């Protein structure tokens, strides 16, 4: 197995409550994959399982091809899987620059440095010494993506990155994600926003009530079909 991330029959949840009931998917190097699903179906729980935040009851999580039994919060980042968490997780007590440096905590060398992130998002350079949360929503999302890139990830996971953002800003984000993908970074996009999914992901999985109920390639699936799985 040389996948970056794989779930095999993962059952996980919080406390004694199972949220995921046997979820499987594989992300190979360079792939861009979307996980779609309505509110509360367990999309973030899948991310949280990988991050050791949700509890793994049964099944296996493979990181970089290796079955990982003790999932610590930092395991993924150190193995080259960077996560932009839902809500972005920008720290208000750190400046923009400090938030970015924090993203390099896993000490993985590669293309991405502070300078390169500032080139990608010049506005972050302008606001480098402002508090992370003093930025606008769109700029905070840039900061969250920039921070994840600082880990030089093989796989970039984004949990509903378009949430609360204006369409123009989502367009810009789609453009950045496509470029990253073209440069070889694998992407796992968790979304309810179809424009972003259609522009970024090649493969999709639909999650419903803790199970993957459908999957396919976005190019072979009409927007209306995808929409069915998301609209309430």
């Amino acid at each position, binding site marked *: 197995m040389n996948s970056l991330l794989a779930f095999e029959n993962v059952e996980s949840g919080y406390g004694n409550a199972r949220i995921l009931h046997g979820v499987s998917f594989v992300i190979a190097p360079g792939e861009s994959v979307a996980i779609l699903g309505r509110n509360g179906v367990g999309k973030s729980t899948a991310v949280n399982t990988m*991050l050791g*935040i949700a509890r793994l009851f049964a099944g296996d999580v493979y990181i970089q091809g290796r079955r990982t039994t003790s999932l*610590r*919060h*930092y395991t*993924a*980042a*150190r193995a080259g899987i960077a*996560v932009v*968490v839902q809500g972005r*997780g920008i*720290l*208000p*007590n*750190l400046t923009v620059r*400090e938030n970015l*440096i*924090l*993203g*390099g*905590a*896993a*000490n993985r060398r590669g293309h991405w440095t502070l300078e390169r992130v500032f080139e990608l998002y010049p506005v972050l350079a302008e606001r480098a010494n402002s508090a992370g949360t003093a930025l606008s929503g769109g700029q905070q999302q840039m900061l969250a993506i920039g*921070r994840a890139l600082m*880990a030089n990830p093989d796989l970039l996971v984004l949990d509903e990155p378009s949430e609360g953002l204006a369409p123009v800003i989502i367009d810009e984000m789609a453009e950045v994600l496509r470029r990253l993908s073209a440069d070889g970074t694998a992407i796992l996009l968790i979304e309810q926003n179809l424009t972003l999914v259609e522009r970024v992901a090649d493969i999709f999985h639909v999650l419903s009530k803790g199970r993957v109920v459908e999957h396919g390639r976005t190019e072979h699936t009409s927007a209306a079909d995808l929409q069915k799985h998301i609209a309430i």
Partner: protein
Amino acid sequence: MAIQVLNGLVYGALLFALASGLALMFGLRRIVNFAHGALYMLGAYVGYTASLQFGFWAGLAVAGLVLAALGVVLDKAVFRPLQHRDPLTTLLVTFGLALIAEDLVLSVWGNDTMSFAEPQQLAHTLSLFETTFPIYRLAIVGFGAAVAIGLVLWLRFSRVGLFVRAASHDPVIAAVQGVDTDRVSALVVAVSAALAGMSGVVAAPLMSLAPSMGADILVDSFIVVVVGGLGSLGGAFITAMLLGQINVLGVVFMPELTSLLPFLLMIGILLWKPTGLAGARL
């Protein structure tokens, strides 16, 4: 009067060195460490024993190192397992540890009063404000200032310091970025314990060693942490200085109220600002 203000600074400096560790530990582990006074007391005894052989400065260094090691053990064995338990459990456990430490010191060092001499280089007095003031006491103010400046530089400008601030605000987000927050905590507890131990050594020449010396200063340190705003260094600094002044000036102007004044200050400030002076952390 000016001399009293200086004495207030001396006590404030000691309080800050102790309270800063408490604040850092609370920031990172959300733990209120009732054994912090015991660490201060242990530091004084360990430093005393080492100083008999090798002199004051070696005693100070040994106390810092021994207490730092003890801090790592304490974090791994006690604080980490306790971090998600209710505050009452932590209170009881750390309080129990403080009692054990006092007992241990009693059985190792006995109950005789021991006096710890200040280093010869500083055993002089200075003519100040038409009277004399011991240089050693000024050195304690310097110690407090060095701790404050050192901590600020460490937290603001080092990579680890950045991780400490991140983990204090949101340990999960920090860890998701790749920070091993358990190691960061162990480091912070080690630094806090070392500061407590060194404060014990620094304070020892002003009084005689006693197993209860930790309990006395602990109450004031807690007031500093709570009034300063839990987990805030800046708040702790201001409050420590304030409390130092209240302590000595109270003796002069309202001797019958001195022991109550710190509590009155705490109640007053918490009524005015329930989150403490600083409000936000770090």
